Structure formats: C-alpha cells, structure tokens
C-alpha cells in the first residue's frame, strides 16, 4: 500500500502572531516552525500502517526551502521519502492543484492531509485534492482501519461521530483521534541519522493562477478590562449577563 501524507509547515501553537511588509505578510522572524498538528496525527497513523501492514509512506509539502527542516523531521519520524513542490503557498487552490498533479502521476492508495492547517485555517486543501483527482474523501477523520481492502473509518460530525465503510483509494482530512497526543513520536538519534540519507525530491511547480489574494492582516483590538465580581455576590453576575451583556 502506498500512502502520501500532506505536510504543512506552521508556526508553533504558542507563537505570538505578528505581520510585516505593511501588514501584508506573516512575520516569520523568531518563529519556531512545526509539523501542522492535524498532519502529524495523520503521519503517525500512516507510520502505524507501515509498521503493521507494510505500507510505504511518502510526505509532500508545497513550500520554499525553509520547510525542509520540517520535512526532515517527518523522515526522522519514519516517512520514507519527501517531496517538496518549490512554491510559496499563498492560495489553497494552487497548493491543492500542485499536490493533485503529483498524485495523478504517482498513484497512491491512501492520501492523508490534516483537516486544516493551524496557521491560515483554510480547511479546504483535502476536499480540493479529492475533486481534482476524483478520489473519494472523508473529512474530519478520527479513525481509520483497513482490512481486506475494506476501509472502516469514522468522521466527527457536530455532536457525535459517523461510522463509514468504503474502499481505496481514499483521501482523508485527519485530526486528533487518528492517534492520540501521546502516540506522537519524537525523532530519535537513529531516525535523525537515517533521515539524512532519505530522498528529498524537489519539484518545480506548474504555474496556476491564484483565485485569492490576501492584501492585509490585522490583529484584534486589545480586550477591555475584565469586570470582577466577588464570589459572595454571584447574583451580580447573573444580573450583568442579563442586563448588560444581554447574553442570557
């Protein structure tokens, strides 16, 4: 079985977000980058398939050279080969088209992408790849098992989960639940050494025109001061929520 995991290179979840170049770009200065958490759950699940079912695991990223540290980390964790499409990701549809082109030329059985990246929160790349490759898609996937060519998967729905039976090939938008937080792997020294010898293929992109263009970022206004209420006067909170906030 051939698995492809789509990897986003995103700021660490604790990052302070700032913008530069007249507020038109994210300021990468001093930012620690990580594997997008939703992708990392999927990558770990893929490595379990590799260990238990004998799958091969490739990873793909659309990004400039700075994302290679993140790709090397995925190789150190256990991916077999990395592909980087040499393009600054500015538009989700262009990212999806670039990945779909690679998939169309290199048949995969299972494609795992994160449900969304934690930076721009577009949440659309896996669905777009599905439409571009005509491969079936399950979003917000929280469990996937394979037996005799049959896929049993679950997806999160509002207020519960839906259990699905389907086949391969398949694309999933993954998230926590595919594996748990404490299943995530920290690369060990042997993994890091091996990662250096694994292939990291850099491909030049096909040119696609953007459908969207970001022209400005803004940060929310700082919050006003909190109104503190004494724990002996809880009736005041109820009153404020009703009369002032109109929330109850």
């Amino acid at each position, binding site marked *: 079985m051939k698995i492809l995991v789509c990897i986003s290179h995103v700021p660490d979840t*604790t990052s302070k977000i700032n913008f530069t170049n007249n507020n038109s770009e994210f300021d990468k200065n001093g930012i620690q980058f990580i594997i997008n958490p939703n992708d990392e759950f999927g990558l770990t699940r893929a490595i379990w398939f590799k260990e238990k079912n004998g799958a091969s695991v490739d990873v793909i990223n659309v990004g400039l050279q700075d994302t290679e540290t993140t790709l090397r980390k995925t190789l150190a964790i256990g991916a077999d080969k990395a592909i980087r499409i040499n393009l600054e990701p500015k538009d989700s549809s262009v990212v999806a088209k670039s990945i779909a082109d690679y998939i169309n030329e290199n048949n995969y059985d299972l494609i795992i992408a994160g449900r969304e990246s934690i930076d721009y929160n577009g949440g659309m790349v896996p*669905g777009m790849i599905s*439409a571009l490759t005509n491969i079936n898609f399950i*979003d917000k996937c929280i469990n996937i098992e394979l037996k005799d060519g049959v896929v049993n998967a679950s997806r999160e729905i509002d*207020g519960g989960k839906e259990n699905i039976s389907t086949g391969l090939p398949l694309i999933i938008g993954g998230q926590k639940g595919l594996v748990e937080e404490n299943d995530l792997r920290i690369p060990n020294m042997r993994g890091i050494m091996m990662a250096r010898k694994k292939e990291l293929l850099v491909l030049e992109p096909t040119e696609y025109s953007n459908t*969207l263009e970001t022209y400005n*970022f803004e940060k929310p206004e700082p919050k006003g001061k909190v109104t503190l209420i004494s*724990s002996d006067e809880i009736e005041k909170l109820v009153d404020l929520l009703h009369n002032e*906030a109109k*929330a109850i």
Partner: protein
Amino acid sequence: MAILIFAETYNGEFKKDCYELASYAYDLASEKNMSVTAICFNASNPSELSNFGVNKIINSSNEELKDFDATIYSNCISDAFENENSKILILSSSSNSKYIGGILAIKLKAGYITNVISKPSFSNGFSVTRNTFTNKAYEKVNILSENSILGLSKNSFGIKENSTKSEVKDIKFNIKSALNKVTSIEKMTTKVTIADADIVVSGGRGLKGPENWHMVEDLADILGAATACSKPVSDLGWRPHSEHVGQTGKPVSSNLYIAIGISGAIQHLAGVNSSKIKVVINTDPEAPFFKAADYGIVGDAFEVVPKLIEELKNFKSSNN
C-alpha cells in the same frame, strides 16, 4: 442574478445557521440588486426561509438525500449553482458545509474563503475579512475568480428577519450512488452541540476529575448550553475529544462562553476568541483567562458554580 445559499437541515428542520446565511445573503443581494436562492434537502417546512429574505427555495425531497453525503450533496449544489446562473455561493461553517466547500470550489472554479466575518466590500474588487491564525488575526482577502464561495463564520452577522414573498420548488437532481456507506451514527449528546449552541460551558483541570463534571452539566442544562473542555482534560480522557476547544480542537463562536477552572493557555484563548461574552471562574487571579474575559470571579469552582446554578434557577423562575 441569484446568490445561492446551502441551507442545511437536520431531521427535516433547518439548522439555526441557515437563518444567518439567509440574512447575510439578503443584505448583500439588496445592495447588489440580486435575489437569494436557497437549496435544501428534505426540509419539512421550506417556506420558513422566506422570513429571512430568500426569494426562491429549491427543496429536493428524496430518500437518497436523507443523510449527508459529500459527493451527492456537492453534485446537487453545483447543479443548482449552474441552473440558477449564480456567481456567489454562501455556506455555513458546520462540519458538513466545510466538508463540501473545497470540493465545490474546484467544481465551480470558485475562489473559496472560509471563516468569513464581514460583508463583502466592493471598493477594491470583491473582498471580505476572515478570521485567521485561529482567531489571533484578521485577514482581508480579494477574490480574483469570477465565481466565489463564502464560508460564513457562525455568529458573525446575526439573524435579521425580512419577510419576503418566495416560491418553493422541488427539483429532482440526478443522483449518483454514494461512495461512503454510513454504517452507524453515534451521537455523544442528545442536547445542543458546541457548533449550534448560543452558550457553551467549559471545564478545565481545575475541576480535578471527570466525576465532578455534573457541575458543568447542571450549569449547562439550566442555560440550555453545550458542554466543552480544555485540551488537558480531553488528553487525560476525562471528556471526549469532540469537546476539546482550542487551536487543535474546536473553535467556539457562541454568544456566551463560561470557562470554569481553565487557566487560559494561548491555544485555548485563540479557540474561544470569537465568542462574544466570556466569563471565567478560577481560583488563581493571575490566570491568563482573566485578561481575555469580560466577567470574572476569583474563587473556587466547587463553591461558585453551585451558587451560580442556584442564582440562575431563581433568575429563570422569575423571568418565565
């Protein structure tokens, strides 16, 4: 020209965000001299949408459309978009709408923007503001393509009634067979979901253990609220992942968010940032949540919450 909205139903009833989508579309349509068409599946009372400015309601009644299927639903919506000569499709931010948004963007060759929080501006092409970096920033985006899809963030526009004369049409779409077979659906809660709730009551590690969650549930019950939790609580297995609120969990954009025993890690605060009113109850006055909240009580949840429940009971009985 019509703006198309996808109005989701659950057991035949419109989900609440349909009314917000309709209100938003009506507002935009009036400004641009357009009309609003809604597409829905198996709605038991489709004409309800006429109260929110929808001119035409395409309600396809078909057993095969009873359960959500991304392939089938996106095919029908895409057919309706083309039949209506539409250029703008408006979706909600529900799990199902986000599921089909990317597929539809490719089918309709549309620029697709999720988490939209503003009305479009036409001063510089066609642009909208969206939430980004999990509510830590806003982004202004121009749509360069002819067609566009806007995924509206919940509670960003509000519901506005506009009684309109509308026609209801039952259209039979050409339905292909589903690729995913739904074997079962497990509902974690019979109550309101985090996605639909106006009020969310959320608990953190300060509650000391899952056995104390009855306090959160009792408070939620009296408010008609959904229950949620912080990341450590779901990682510890005290509560299901589906309740985890934050950057790697769910975003919450409710009217009221009550955080009990949650200190307020940056990832959690980002996830609740778009909620309108935030209340924090915590023993530690230095907890970062106090900086993000509108109202705060410094105190022990085990004393404060039961008292709050009592006060709310008094409030509810005197207001009914």
